[in-house]
């Protein structure tokens, strides 16, 4: 009974699959406007191409067509019944109306149906403010419900997994979540159960929604049925400030919107970038800002004196560190994989200025990934390891030999930026001994880490979200970070620290802001020739690929 098409079946109805088959040009009109598109597309896709957004709930460009919400019904000339735009293939000469009286009326009707059993608990619903029911109600409905019967009830706040909680009463049964786990992660945790208005979404018995991409269903759920356990009830979404940036979780470089409230990161949301992360974000990345930010911040430079580290001024600290490092040759420089290209460029310049006898590396560790993790994640936690190396933070053989030399006591001075070496593996005692053997250790970080406690000079710097600059992802895509939160007073931007040190070391550079540094590095680093900061835009630029690969 096996069918050869079995494995392909789940895709056969997806727009992508259909695009692969047919690419013939087609012309049709939508609301009187002519659209030139290709065969195999649907009316909703063709409309989007000319900027007409046909309202929809169940349709999602990355999922198969479900056709269940009926919000996208449109009128098509010479067809007696309204048709769903999400499943209607374009046909040469077709004429589509998305604003006719019949269409406007059915939109109101569908909205009314969707709200029949809906609790409308917007005041306590975390989705309020970014809810498609609210938005479409304002755009297409704006009338009271005629439903005056008893509403059906369903499960409230059922925990689906570590990150996702479900409210059955708010669910509109669009099945986006079910399809996401069937088609994208292929983990199949969710299904629809029961019938009629008792239909609801449920976990398969014995499963937990804990796959590495689980958080994405919160984004694609158009209503408040699936909410983010980490974010919910922390802040109303309309208070959030949104800043485009890049996820610092790994070197995939997923595009994110960093959403902040009162100078704190409240959540990450994915930004669509088909060259990188499509619509998705992994859970590790989504919540990584908790570990990377906050805590008790360092706000003043420290210097080691008899008995320990004491606060000092930036001038004294920089002076002490320069003379200290100059007297501790050979030097090791270890940079975090979360430092930007601009920081890496300046760091390499500075270290080479201090001594030719120095070895530089980016902290980089790999781990095994599961099949589901591989859909999006890279095996490291160093979002900019590639860029930093390209900026010159690299030595022969990579990190391994450098670490070995460190343990062997080859170096007498070290400059560690943005990483707690004591935290990188279980061999803490050995690392401590190794660090203590150094005649001079400088640590630049945001918190008083265990490594910092061993340092001779500690410099307070800035965390993710507080700086702008660029990352180059694993595949060579240069992408921009922007400032989402303000650094505490007393801490300095890493770029500024390096520029001041370069100054003091006698290498007066003519650039200081990340933008200026980028334009400088684009001149000096061959792979980056011809790039300019402004052209990177919201979607990044592919190295070597020129503009062609740019979105």
């Amino acid at each position, binding site marked *: *009974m096996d*069918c*050869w*098409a*079995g494995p*392909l*079946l789940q895709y*056969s*109805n997806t727009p992508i699959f259909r695009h692969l088959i047919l690419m013939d040009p087609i012309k049709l009109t939508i609301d009187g406007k002519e659209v030139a598109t290709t065969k195999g597309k649907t009316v909703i896709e063709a409309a989007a191409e000319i900027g007409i957004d046909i309202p929809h709930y169940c349709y999602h460009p990355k999922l198969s*067509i*479900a*056709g*269940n*919400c*009926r*919000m996208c*019904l449109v009128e098509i000339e010479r067809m007696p*019944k*309204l048709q*769903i735009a999400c*499943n209607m*293939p374009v046909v040469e000469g077709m004429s589509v109306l998305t604003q006719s009286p019949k269409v406007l009326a*059915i939109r109101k*009707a*569908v909205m*009314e*149906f*969707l709200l*029949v*059993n809906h609790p409308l608990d917007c005041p306590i619903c975390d989705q309020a403010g970014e809810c498609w029911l609210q938005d479409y109600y304002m755009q297409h409905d704006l009338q009271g419900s*005629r*439903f*005056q*019967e*008893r509403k*059906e009830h369903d499960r409230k706040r059922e925990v689906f997994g570590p990150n996702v909680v479900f409210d059955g009463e708010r669910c*509109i*049964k669009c099945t986006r979540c079910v399809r996401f786990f069937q088609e994208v992660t292929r983990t199949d945790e969710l*299904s*629809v159960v*029961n*019938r*009629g*208005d*008792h*239909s609801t979404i449920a976990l398969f018995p014995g499963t937990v929604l804990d796959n590495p991409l689980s958080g994405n269903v919160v984004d694609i759920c158009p209503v408040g049925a699936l909410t983010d356990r980490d974010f919910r009830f922390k802040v109303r979404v309309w208070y959030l400030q949104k800043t485009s940036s890049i996820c610092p979780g790994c070197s995939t470089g997923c595009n994110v919107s960093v959403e902040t409230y009162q100078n704190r990161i409240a959540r990450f949301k994915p930004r669509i970038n088909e060259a990188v992360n499509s619509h998705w974000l992994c859970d590790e990345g989504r919540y990584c800002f908790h570990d990377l930010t906050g805590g008790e911040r360092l706000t003043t430079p420290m210097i080691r004196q008899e008995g320990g580290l004491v606060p000092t001024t930036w001038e004294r600290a920089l002076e002490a560190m320069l003379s200290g490092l100059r007297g501790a040759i050979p030097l090791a420089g270890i940079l975090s994989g979360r430092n930007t290209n601009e920081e890496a460029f300046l760091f390499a310049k500075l270290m080479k200025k201090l001594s030719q006898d120095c070895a530089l590396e980016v902290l980089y560790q790999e781990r095994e990934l599961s099949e589901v993790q591989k859909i999006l994640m890279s095996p490291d936690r160093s979002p900019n390891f590639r860029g930093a190396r390209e900026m010159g933070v690299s030595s022969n053989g990579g990190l391994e030999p450098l670490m070995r030399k460190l343990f062997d006591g080859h170096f007498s001075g070290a400059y560690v930026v943005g990483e707690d070496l004591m935290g990188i593996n279980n061999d803490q005692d050995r690392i401590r001994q190794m660090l203590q053997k150094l005649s001079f250790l400088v640590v630049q970080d945001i918190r008083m880490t265990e490594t910092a406690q061993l340092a001779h000079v500690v410099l307070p710097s800035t965390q993710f979200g507080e700086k702008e600059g660029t990352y180059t992802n694993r595949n060579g895509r240069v992408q921009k970070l922007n400032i989402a939160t303000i650094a505490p007073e007393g801490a300095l931007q890493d770029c500024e620290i390096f520029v001041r040190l370069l100054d003091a070391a006698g290498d007066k550079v003519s650039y200081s802001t990340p933008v200026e540094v980028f334009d400088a590095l684009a001149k000096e680093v061959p792979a980056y020739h011809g790039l300019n900061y402004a052209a990177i835009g919201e979607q990044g630029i592919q190295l070597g690929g020129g503009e062609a690969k740019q979105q």
Partner: protein
Amino acid sequence: MEKVLLRNIDVPDSHTLAVYSSRGGYRPWQEVVKNIRPEQLIEEIKASGLRGRGGAGFPTGMKWGFVPKDSPKPKYMVCNADESEPGTFKDRLLIEKDPHAIIEGTLMAAYAIQSHTAFIYIRGELAFGANILERAVDEATQAGYIGKNILGSGYDVDLIVHRGAGAYICGEETALLSSLEGGRGWPKVKPPFPATHGLFGCPTVVNNVETLAALPWIIEHGAAAYAAMGTDKSKGTKLFSVSGHISKPGVYELEMGYPLMKFLEEDCGGVPNGRRLKGVIPGGGSMPVLRPDELEKVNLDYESVQAAGSLLGSGGVIVMDDGTCMVRAAWNLARFFAHESCGQCSPCREGCHWMEKIFHRIEQGEGRKGDLELILNVSGNIMGNTICPFGDAAAMPAAAFVRKYREEFEEHITQKRCTIRNGVME
């Protein structure tokens, strides 16, 4: 009239291969598989004018013709034995009394589209019938009518009896296919259509039990003999299952175009107990009810019933006498549809229950002004806007009851109770 469908049912042990064969059974199949090419068979059935008896009346030969001949995928033939339409029990009779006719017809249809795997999808509750069918399939397999290289023809086909779990919606052909695939009994969005993307994404034909059971007779007697019966557009004979307030309920085979009132009064003995007729649903619970004044000129064929404002559907004739509370009848049907809605698409999922709640309230004496307009409006919003025709099937009868017995509904609302006493409104 010569019986096409009920020709065997009164013979003792008609369900056995021995009796079926003794009456000429499987001779047509031998003829087809040995001497008739698939295209010829399709032409023959087109010429007979046979239309699908599952409700929509779609020409059977034409449906087979939609299956692509050059597809590299396997093709599937499915016999729809899910019969669950309220008031419809014709297929069950054939399943229990003449299973071999269904099997023979299914084999022919499979041959016509060159499918090598055919299914009979039978409603879960019809366990007795499923047992009979399974036994009949075994007999036919042993006799060499099913399997590999059938009767030396080189044609192979397997026939599998699949029991559903019992859901009305699984009679809708794409829901049936989802269920057969092992999924939820959810209708599929169209396009694509089953003829090209049916079971497991492969070309598939779904035909009703009664449709398929007519095939052996047509092959034996010729398309012309079949087409000679019935009307211009509705050929042949059809089964009608009559229930409700009628003296002789049961399954009847009639030539298409038979006058409805004659049928009810003469063949079925009329409304019993001296009561008067109040309404008839001519085509199963999902079709609009007709009032006595609308029934007079109705003949039992697709066109005539449609002209009267209803549809022939499955041929489930439900008769209601003047003691019937139409509010209660409407609620009863609405409750059925609310219960059976698969819940996939919003208008049907929410609308069916909404209508049921309003009907229920009116029936309970809690009707409000505006309720009737609301029902009409909600049913209008469902009609034509859903994934599958179930939405229409629920909306049409609801609207028809309200429109055609409006006075009675209004009386119910204002009096806050049923006022039907001894066949008249008080």
